[in-house]
C-alpha cells in the first residue's frame, strides 16, 4: 500500500493479519472430553485445564478463606459451582490455550532522496502461555532467589501473588501462577539508510556505498515482561527455567560494492 509518492518522498505500508481457528470436534471415543489427556471438545488441542486464580485471600475475608481451608494471603481460586469447596471435579476449567486471537504486523517504509527509513511492528494477541520460569523462580519460599514481583503482605494487600511462606517450597495452588497472557507488541526492526550519490562513489572508485543504522528488536512490550519480570513471552508452548535472553541488536554498517 503506497500512502504518498510525491517527488523525492515515498511512504509505503505493508499490513498483514492472521487468525488461526482450531478446535477438537471429536475424539477416539466420540464427542466426549478426555480430561486425563487434556483434550476437550470445542477447544484447541493445547487447552489448559486447571483451577482459576481470581486473586489473593484478603484480611477481611479470613472467615470465608478458612471455610475453603485457606489462609489469608494464599491464592484464591474460583469456586465455580459455589458448593463451598474447591474440588477437582467441579472447579477446574479451561484457562486458555496457545492459540492467539490473531497475529498482525505492519511495515512502514519511507524514502526521501538518498535516505530510506523503515520499521516493522509485530503483535500477537490473546494466547495463554505456561511459564515454568515462574514456577522455578517464583517459589516465594524465602530460601531461593525470587523474581521481584508484587506479593501479598498485610500492608500490601495485592491480588497478584501470595504471601511468601518459609514453610513451603511452592504456594498452595501454585500451578495457577504459571499462566500468563501471550500478548505482546514488538518492534522487530528499525532501519535507517543512506545511499551515497553516484558522483561521490565514482571518485572513490567504487560502484556503490550504502551507510546504515539498524536496530533488531529494540522494543518489546508485554505485561509478562513489564509487570511479571519474565524475559520474552514469544513462545509457542511453555517457557522453561533455562530460557535464553531476548536479545536486542544495534548495527552500524557500511555496504560497499566494488
Amino acid at each position, binding site marked *: 500500500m503506497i500512502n504518498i509518492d510525491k517527488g523525492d518522498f515515498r511512504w509505503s505500508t505493508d499490513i498483514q493479519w492472521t487468525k488461526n481457528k482450531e478446535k477438537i470436534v471429536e475424539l477416539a471415543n466420540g464427542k466426549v472430553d478426555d*480430561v*486425563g*489427556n487434556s483434550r476437550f471438545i470445542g477447544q484447541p488441542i493445547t487447552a489448559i485445564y486447571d483451577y482459576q486464580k481470581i486473586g489473593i485471600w484478603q484480611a477481611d475475608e479470613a472467615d470465608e478463606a478458612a471455610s*475453603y*481451608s*485457606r489462609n489469608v494471603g494464599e491464592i484464591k481460586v474460583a469456586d465455580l459451582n459455589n458448593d463451598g469447596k474447591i*474440588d*477437582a*471435579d467441579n472447579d477446574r476449567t479451561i484457562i486458555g490455550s496457545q492459540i492467539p486471537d490473531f497475529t498482525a504486523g505492519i511495515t512502514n517504509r519511507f524514502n526521501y532522496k538518498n535516505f530510506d527509513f523503515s520499521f516493522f511492528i509485530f503483535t500477537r494477541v490473546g494466547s495463554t502461555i505456561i511459564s515454568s520460569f515462574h514456577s522455578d523462580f517464583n517459589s516465594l519460599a524465602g*530460601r531461593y532467589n525470587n523474581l521481584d514481583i508484587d506479593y501479598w503482605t498485610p500492608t500490601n494487600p495485592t491480588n497478584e501473588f501470595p504471601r511468601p511462606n518459609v*514453610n*513451603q*517450597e*511452592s504456594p*498452595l495452588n501454585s*500451578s495457577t501462577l504459571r499462566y500468563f497472557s501471550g500478548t505482546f507488541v514488538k518492534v522487530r526492526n528499525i532501519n535507517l539508510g543512506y545511499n551515497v550519490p553516484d558522483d561521490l562513489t565514482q571518485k572513490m572508485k567504487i560502484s556503490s556505498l550504502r551507510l546504515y543504522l539498524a536496530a533488531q528488536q529494540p522494543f518489546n512490550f508485554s505485561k509478562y515482561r513489564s509487570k511479571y519480570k519474565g524475559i520474552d513471552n514469544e513462545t509457542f508452548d511453555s517457557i522453561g527455567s533455562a530460557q535464553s535472553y531476548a536479545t536486542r541488536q544495534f548495527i552500524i554498517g557500511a555496504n560497499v560494492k566494488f
Partner: protein
Amino acid sequence: MKAKFKLFLYLTLLWGVAGCSQILDEVPVSQVGSQYYNSLAGFEGGVNAVYTSMRSYYGAEVSTNLSVFGTDTYTNGSDGSYKYMNQYTASFGSNVSILTNLWNSLYSGINTANILIDLANTDGVTGLSEAAKNQRIAELKFLRAHAYFLLTQNWGNIAISVNGITNPTKDFTKATVAEVYAVILADLIAALPYLPTTVGNADYGRATQGACEHMLAKVYLTKATSEAAESTDFENAATYSSHVINNYSYALQSDYALVHDQSNQQNSEIIWAVQYSNDVLTNGSGNMTHLFFLMEYDVQAGMIRDIANGRPWKRYRPTDYLLNVIFNPADRSKDSRFKKSFKDTWLSNSPGTFTSGLFDNTKTSVTFASGDTAIYIPGIEWTVEQRAAKKFQVLVPSLYQANLYPTLSKYLDPLRPEIGTSAGSRDVFVARLADTYLILAEANIKLGRSQQAADAINMIRRRAAWSGMESEMEITASDATMEFLMQERERELSGELSRWYDLKRWGVLVSQVQAYNPDGAAGIQSYHNLRPIPQTQIDRTEGTSTNFPQNPGY
C-alpha cells in the same frame, strides 16, 4: 529447459524410491520388544524389574514422608518441600507429585508382575524349568502382594488387577479393602511353599519363605484392625510371626548398634531388604534416606560439611514425645537404644576460633583444634554453669530448634564417594527380626496372652540393654499392654518406615498427632487416615470421579 527439468524430476523420483526401500529395511536395535520376556534372560530381567519397582518407595523421600512425617514422634525440620505432609494442610491434596509417582511406579511394577505370571503360567518362557518357574511366580506374587499392601494401607479402596494389561485401558474401579486383602493373602499363601528358605549370596534380596511369613504376620495384624477384620486375624499374625522366629535361622544381633552398622548390612537379623549398592550403573537414585534426618551441623562453629557427618537436609525432627517420653531420660542408663539411635557428638573438622553464630549462649567464643569436640548433645537439660564449663557448644533440649536437634544416625552413609552424593548405598531393611518379635507381642496382647507378649518383648529389650542391665530391662506380663507396646515399637524401630502405619493400625493416628506433633496437631482430621488419590488416576479413569472417587476430605 523443459526437457532438462523433466529429467531432473524423474531422477528425483527415482532417488526417492530407492531411498524408501532402504528405510523399510531398518531394524531398530535400541528397543526391547515384549517378546524378550519369552526368552529366559528376558524373563529373569523382568522379575528383577519388579524387584526394582520397590525402590520407588524404599529409599526414596516418599517412604519417610509417608511413615515418619505426621506422626507423634517426628515433625518437620527447617527445610523441605513436603512439610504439608506433616502439617496436614490443604496443600496435601491430589496433586502431590511424589504420591503420583509412587502410585504409578507401584502399579507399573504390579502390571509387570502380572504379565510375567501370565506368561510363565502358560509356559511362554523358553528354557524355564518347572522349579524355577514356580519359584519366580512365587517371588512375583510376593512382590505384588507387597505393592498392594502399601497401596491399601495408604489409599484404602484401590483398583486391583491380577492379570497383565497389555493395551491401554481406562476401565478401573475401586475394590474394597476386604477384596484387596483377599488378593494379598491369596498371593502370599500361594507363594509360600514355592519360595526358598534361604538364598545364596548372589541372590541375596530375593524373597524367601521367612520374608513371606513375616509379611503374612504383618498383613494379618494390620487387617485385624481394618474394616476387613476377621476374628482369626490376630491368631494368624501370632502363628506366622512365631514361624519366622522358630523355623528359620534368623537371630537378633548381639548389640543393637550392629543392626545398622553399614559394614554389617546382610546380618542375621535381616529377613528382607531392598537392595542398593555402590555400583553407580545399577544404584539408580540410591537410598537417599541418609539425607533427611540430619541437623544443620555444617554451619556451626568448628564444623564444615563432610562425607562422614553427611549432607544435612533437615527434614525430620524428633518430637519432645520421642525424646522425653519414649526415650525417657530415666531409662537411658539401662536402655542403650537412645545412645545408639542418635548422634550426639560432632568433632571439629574446621579448626579455629569462633566468636559469632554460636547457639550455646553461655559462651562468646570457642576455639577448636582439629578433632576436638565441637558440638555435644547431652539429651537432657544442663545448667548454665555446666554448659559454660565446657569448651564446646552444648545443645540442650531448651535450645533445640528446627535445624538443631538430635540426629537419627541409623541411615548415615559415610561410604558415599563425595560430599554431595545423594545416592546412598545402604540397603533398606523392610523386615527384620526385632519387628517380627514385636508383631508377635502385639498379636499376643490382643489375644490376651500377656506372658507370651512379655516374653517376645523381653527378647528385644534384653538385647537393647547396656551390658549388665539385661534383667532390669525385662518386663512382666502385667507390663505387656498396648500402651507399653506402642512406645516399645518406636524405641526399637524409630525412623524405620513404620510409625504412621502403626498409628493408623492402632486407630490413634489423630489423637497421637494432636497430642504430640506440634506442627501437625492443628491440621489433622480423621480423613487423614487415607491419602489423597492422584488426580491423574481419577482423570484417566472412565467415568472419572463417578467411577473412581477421591478419598473423602481431599
